[in-house]
């Protein structure tokens, strides 16, 4: 067990302090008085070991600390000096103890402020506050209560000590607590009031302090002890200081959370805008420019890419739309786009632009995906048309034209208005090819460059359709028809006549027009839906009677777009 302050003071002057011992020794020598001092249990603290006749008790606050033993009254001056020195030392130690107590409080408040400054939510701040307070204020129970004005309820956000009924009592005594919180004062609860309150039945001592920021009180801290420890005014003051500090921290945390929420809301709004804008400007386009987000894009950004451009056109759109109201027309186009878009994306492409009665799609990973998508779009429409037929609606047919080549993707416009743009001859050519597919009556038409670009051409079946010089183009283009998008019957017909058609084309290009016409007619007769066969039959038939230049290479020059 540690010694009392008085025992320590006595021990200090008689045993530890060399200077005091020396003075007392000299006093003994000069006065010729012999004396000694021993503790209550007979331990000699200072002086001679001889046996003395007289004793005097050294008492402090009604407690005997030890015995002063002496030979004659001459030694009483030494006893008085001893008493005085003891008194001074005791006072010094008492002050030291108080100062240390205050120092501990300052330390705790210092620690608390450091700990709560790291917390950003009220619950953590409340928890730390109670834990720290319990280090310095003797307590077995504590509650950290907040008044929620919106819900008109008092909430316990932290607790120390077990009390299973605490929440029920808080609800029951809501009005009393509200009243206490509103009053915003600190107090030590008188014992008789504790005894009368069933909610405080488990406690003998209770005090509380408000959680206050400026003049607004939003909660309180209540703490207590199962034993009668009797809180002092100093402890109440300490609790008030702690609560005040905690309240400020909670207020800051609240402001921080509010700020954080605003930032999150803003970010959410930006994300939504980003999501929507991505639908207007395809994310693949942004990515192709080497950017992660549309917000990183600037006027003048551009990149050159090798792409396959696919133009899809709804055939006979005017006929279909004639029978529809403008709204239904719009719905029809949207329905169509909804079916086609996923097929494009599934095959690695993206829709660059909607064109009213069709669209333009870009494929940046070669033409294999582009052609696969084109075939699948035809198949999807064949299914769709079965459903339309049941509702007696006109079938929807499309023509597809493709070209592969270089393309510049970039951001064009001015400072006020930006747009994703592509500039390329490849795009113009692809558009022309799609136009030619109408002329040839093919479902999918592609160029030599596009076919050469396929990674697995064996997946498809082609017919060579000769060379064409589109309007405004200098170089003639070799064209191929991909037959896999045709209706089943027509596809089977073309498949079984692949070799014959090739032979007919060779005859045609060799200027053997009569033979070519016969062969094309043979093909056409077996299926009158074979439009290219019909077209070449007519051309060959025409050329039989015409004068042909020596350098004729079968290039068809288009005079319309």
């Amino acid at each position, binding site marked *: 067990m540690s010694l009392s302050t008085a025992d320590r003071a006595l021990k*200090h002057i008689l045993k530890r302090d060399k200077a005091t011992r020396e003075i007392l020794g000299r006093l003994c020598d000069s006065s010729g008085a012999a004396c000694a001092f021993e503790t209550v249990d007979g331990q000699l603290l200072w002086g001679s070991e001889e046996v003395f006749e007289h004793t005097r008790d050294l008492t402090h606050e009604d407690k005997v600390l030890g015995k002063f033993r002496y030979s004659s009254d001459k030694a009483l001056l030494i006893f008085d000096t001893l008493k005085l020195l003891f008194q001074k030392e005791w006072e010094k130690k008492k002050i030291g103890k108080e*100062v240390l107590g205050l120092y501990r409080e300052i330390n705790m408040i210092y620690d608390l402020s450091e700990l709560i400054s790291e917390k950003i939510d009220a619950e953590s701040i409340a928890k730390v506050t109670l834990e720290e307070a319990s280090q310095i204020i003797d307590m077995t129970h504590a509650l950290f209560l907040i008044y929620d004005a919106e819900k008109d309820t008092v909430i316990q956000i932290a607790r120390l000590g077990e009390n299973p009924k605490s929440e029920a009592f808080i609800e029951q005594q809501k009005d009393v607590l509200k009243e206490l919180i509103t009053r915003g004062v600190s107090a030590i609860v008188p014992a008789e009031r504790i005894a009368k309150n069933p909610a405080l039945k488990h406690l003998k001592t209770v005090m509380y302090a408000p959680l206050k920021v400026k003049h607004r009180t939003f909660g309180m801290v209540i703490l207590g002890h199962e034993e009668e420890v009797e809180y002092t005014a100093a402890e109440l003051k300490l609790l008030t200081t702690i609560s005040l500090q905690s309240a400020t921290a909670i207020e800051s945390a609240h402001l921080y959370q509010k700020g954080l929420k605003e930032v999150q809301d803003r970010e959410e709004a930006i994300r939504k805008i980003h999501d929507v804008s991505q639908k207007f400007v395809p994310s693949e386009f942004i990515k192709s420019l080497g950017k992660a987000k549309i917000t990183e894009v600037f006027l003048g950004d551009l990149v050159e890419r090798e792409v396959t451009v696919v133009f899809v056109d709804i055939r006979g759109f005017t006929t279909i739309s004639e029978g529809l109201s403008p709204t239904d027309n719009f719905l029809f186009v949207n329905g169509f786009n909804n079916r086609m878009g996923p097929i494009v994306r599934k095959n690695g492409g993206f829709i660059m632009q909607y064109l009213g009665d069709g669209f333009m799609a870009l494929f940046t990973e070669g033409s294999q995906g582009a052609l696969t998508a084109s075939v699948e779009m035809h198949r999807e429409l064949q299914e769709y048309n079965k459903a339309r037929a049941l509702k007696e609606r006109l079938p929807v047919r499309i023509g597809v034209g493709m070209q592969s080549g270089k393309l510049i993707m970039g951001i064009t416009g001015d400072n006020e208005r930006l747009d994703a743009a592509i500039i390329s001859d490849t795009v113009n050519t692809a558009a022309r090819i799609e136009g030619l597919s109408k002329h040839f009556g093919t479902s999918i038409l592609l160029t030599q460059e596009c076919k050469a670009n396929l990674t697995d051409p064996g997946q498809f079946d082609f017919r060579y359709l000769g060379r064409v010089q589109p309007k405004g183009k200098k170089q003639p283009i070799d064209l191929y028809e991909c037959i896999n998008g045709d209706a089943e019957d027509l596809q089977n017909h073309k498949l079984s006549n692949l070799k014959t058609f090739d032979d007919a084309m060779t005859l045609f290009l060799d200027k053997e027009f009569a033979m070519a016409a016969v062969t094309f007619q043979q093909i056409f007769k077996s299926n009158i839906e074979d439009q290219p066969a019909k077209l070449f039959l007519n051309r060959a038939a025409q050329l039989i009677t015409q004068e042909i230049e020596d350098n004729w290479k079968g290039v068809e020059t288009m005079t319309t777009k």
Partner: protein
Amino acid sequence: MDKKLLIVDDEAHIRMLIEQTLEDLEDEGVELLFADNGADALRIIQEERPNLVFLDVMMPKMNGMEVCQKVKKELNITETYIILLTAKGQEVDRQKGLDMGANKYMTKPFDPDEMLSIAEEILNL
């Protein structure tokens, strides 16, 4: 042999606080010594060879760093364990103090419980 502990600080209340904090050690037979300036501290260290010194850094005349350097580097007194005490926010001096030969650092305001347990540990109590 009795153990000795020297408390060096120019502020009387800090000396009192440390004394109060460490008073239990006296019951274990540790003698507490005091100095209120660097020069006295140096003299006491040389004469008494305390086992442990709590040495304030910021003192007039000879500061704690200098005392530490003289004790550890010039006088080569290695057996005395020196803990430098510095105000919070001056931790930048930490490395400098350790370079001067200090064994440990504590910041003020110090935690009394921590100070007592460190002293007990160093004095093998």
